[in-house]
């Protein structure tokens, strides 16, 4: 081959070098440069109209899901960590007497099924014998009262807590038992399948067995069986991912998120308060409060185009643990302009304190009924939006 002709082998070798080198160079020089932003989709807003309401009032029935963090985390540690299936912990009510981490839904429910939902005291006596750390169980539940534009009021129950004993006491303290029995509460909305939000279901059903229940898709077979085994006789509605319009100005939004203790999916509440803006009420907010806000911005239409308030567990440091990414949240939350923040439960006391330190409008509570600190909107406390 003469010198001025292309040597095929050398050309291919060079091409291989060129392809590898240029690809790596482009990866390094372009991928994190400001130019990359031209590839991002512009945020399109769907602006789904889900109506408007006048105001909402949230009564915290119980935010104390467990009373001693060290006991709960001790159980989780000994059972094998945060990925262990929650039905295997041998926590109440699904105890089989075999000890920590050796429980099963089927063995546990078999012992109490015949007593649900009416004979909860008897069931609790059996549970005491078969479960571990019974007295550490509390629960999360809230009553949400919506005032529509014409003044009509509607009530919904968000979650049903965990311990039968504790939740029954809390329901009686706040008059939830009577509201359920009278049919004042339209529906029970289960935010997600976690023990502290869902396992107290028979307490609600004791007073209103035919109540309509909304759950997010993603419940495991044990959870679905528990609804039946608890004696539910009403309608069960399984919400798909995305928005479910409930009443004017009230929507549920379901997020497909993986959650600790083998749970999947959580739904939270959005409210559009007239002349105020958007309010979110969450059980645990495993999707993250800022994700929740961002979703609202992209998906929903709300008054003043303003994020007005938050209530609930914000799932930042539920076990009083910490991580620098939580500081990312603490730092960023101020950019969203909330005017009223009521936080508790899985938000973490340290996080609530950091919010207060940064001057965020945290509505503090009264620290009654076993709530530990006033930086939380505690058990029996009330927060209103639009009033």
């Amino acid at each position, binding site marked *: 081959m003469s010198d001025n002709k*292309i*040597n095929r082998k*050398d*050309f*291919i*070798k*060079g*091409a*291989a*070098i*060129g*392809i*590898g*080198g*240029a*690809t*790596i*160079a*482009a*990866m*390094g020089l*372009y*991928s994190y440069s400001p130019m990359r932003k031209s*590839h*991002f*989709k512009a945020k399109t807003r769907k602006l789904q109209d889900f109506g408007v309401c006048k105001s909402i009032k949230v009564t915290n029935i119980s935010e104390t899901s467990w009373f001693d*963090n*060290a006991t709960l*985390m001790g159980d*989780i*540690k000994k059972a094998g*960590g*945060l*990925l*262990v*299936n929650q039905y295997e912990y041998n926590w109440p009510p699904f105890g089989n007497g075999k000890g920590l981490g050796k429980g099963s839904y089927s063995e546990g429910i078999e012992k109490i099924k015949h007593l649900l939902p009416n004979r909860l005291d008897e069931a609790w006596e059996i549970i005491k014998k078969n479960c571990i750390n019974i007295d550490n169980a509390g629960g999360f539940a809230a009553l949400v009262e919506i005032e529509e534009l014409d003044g009509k009021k509607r009530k919904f129950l968000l979650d049903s807590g965990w311990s039968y004993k504790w939740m029954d006491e809390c329901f009686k303290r706040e008059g939830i038992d009577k509201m359920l029995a009278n049919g004042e509460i339209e529906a029970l909305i289960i935010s997600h399948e976690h023990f502290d939000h869902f396992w107290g279901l028979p307490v609600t059903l004791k007073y209103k067995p035919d109540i309509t229940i909304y759950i997010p898709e993603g419940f495991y077979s044990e959870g679905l069986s528990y609804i039946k085994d608890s004696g539910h006789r009403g309608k069960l509605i399984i919400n798909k991912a995305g928005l479910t319009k409930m009443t004017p100005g009230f929507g549920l939004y379901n997020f*497909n998120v*993986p959650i*600790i203790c*083998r*749970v*999947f999916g959580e739904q939270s509440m959005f409210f559009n308060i007239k002349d105020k803006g958007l309010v979110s009420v969450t059980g645990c907010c*495993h*999707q*993250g409060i*800022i*994700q929740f806000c*961002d979703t609202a911005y992209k998906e929903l239409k709300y008054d003043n185009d303003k994020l007005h308030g938050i209530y609930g567990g914000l799932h930042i440091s539920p*076990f*009083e*643990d*910490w991580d*620098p*990414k939580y500081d*990312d*949240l*603490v*730092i*960023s939350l101020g950019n969203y302009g909330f005017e009223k923040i009521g936080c508790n439960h899985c938000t973490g*006391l340290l996080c609530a304190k950091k919010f207060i330190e940064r001057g965020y409008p945290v509505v503090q509570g009264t620290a009654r009924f076993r709530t530990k600190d006033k930086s939380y909107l505690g058990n029996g406390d009330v927060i209103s939006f639009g009033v």
Partner: protein
Amino acid sequence: MKKMVILSDNKKFFKETTMEDYGKNYLEQRKLEKKWKGPIPAIVNLLFTLVIFYITWWIFQDPRGWLRMYTPYVGYMYTRWWLIVLIWMVYLFNFWPFKRDWVIKTHPVIKGLILTSISALILVALIKIFFEGILGNFGIAYFNPSRISKLPGVTEFFAIEYASLACLMFAAIASWLSPAWVVACEEAPWQKLSQPAKGFSIWVVTFFLSTIVYFVTMHSHMGILYYPWQYFTSITPPYWENFANTVSGNFHVAWIMCCTVTVWLLETIWERFPFSLIKNPTARRITAFFGIIAIAFAMHFFFYFVQELTFGEAIRGTRRDAAPDWRWLHVGEMAIFLLVPALFLKFYAGNWPNKFSLPVNVLLRTIISAAAGIVLYYLYYRFGHLVLGTQKGFSHPQQFPMIPTIWLINIWLVNHWFMDNWPGWKMVPKTAEEIAAEEKAMEEKISEIKWSSSLGLGIGAGAVIGMTLYFITIRILPFLYEKISIIPN
């Protein structure tokens, strides 16, 4: 000095005549011969190692299993440090203090059991004695769970998790620097020392460097972990906050993991190309060491961009797949998915393909590894939770795909390094002539790549193709992601 002795049973063994051969790399001196033709040995070994993986996963890691170390940080820490201990034993110390004769003659299963047990002992001693006992008691409290648990409000569970996190962040750095000193720096300046002097020299230097890198990349993360921010013992907020859009040290975990992956790509499917083209040893070593970092940063930025193109822009303060800290962590996870098939190609597929020139072989192997990595990524997120006892979905806060992938890599390293690819292969020491022939063949491969106008034209054309491929990839990624449902609702 050695001489080759031909034994009556036709097995060839190195026999020591003067001193032990700790200094020579056993991996280069052995020849692995397939016991059966075709892909059967690879399939047999894959099945064998997967069975071992699953049994050991169940015993040590699985949240449904026996010891349930996947808490996750405890299991994660041991997984990472085990990888480093294996690297130390083989790459730094060349099997010292075991006599080469023993390494050659012992049955692979016995050898695997003994060496693995020793690696486990070193691992436990390292964590319990060095990190928790010495460092955690006399230097930095956060390496010792019992000291952390004295902080008000910190439970025993999280005390152990935080200490494990600190140890594993250190491990991430060591898993890059320890092999990099061998692969990139070619053990210089101690390459001529005998063992254990060489091993200890490299170990001390790489450990020292790891400590420095730890302090400037990870220590601030630990300082932020405790309330209030530890302003006077660590730099908070950290210097990377605005660039990385997070105060989390995951930004560094990402590029350091990419360094680890690049070191192993360079050592396996790239056969130390392109740095092997540099003739001057000092220039080659320096270029290789910093070249690894440069390639790792390219990978680092690209994998982050891939997530922006698929999951959408990151939003600071969110949790899960939109959070910058998780995105950076996922960069490292994506890189590991790329490494797994690359190691399989090297260990069990004879570094296929081999019939082309070195640059073409390297490019083809990289493409194969990338494609297989994407398939593995899909399989992990689609089915992994069913097998591993973890939770389905991306970005579960307690879920780290690096744990099972590195656990599998560790088992492959045990099988490949300690067990000579048993049962699909048998080890036969290479003759001096074979070693010389291999070295010559590699020199020829490198010398084939000489500057010419054809090579230059090829590089130019390849550069255009490479750029085009890059921009086509980033254009089609969002559409591909929309079409493929990895995790069905």
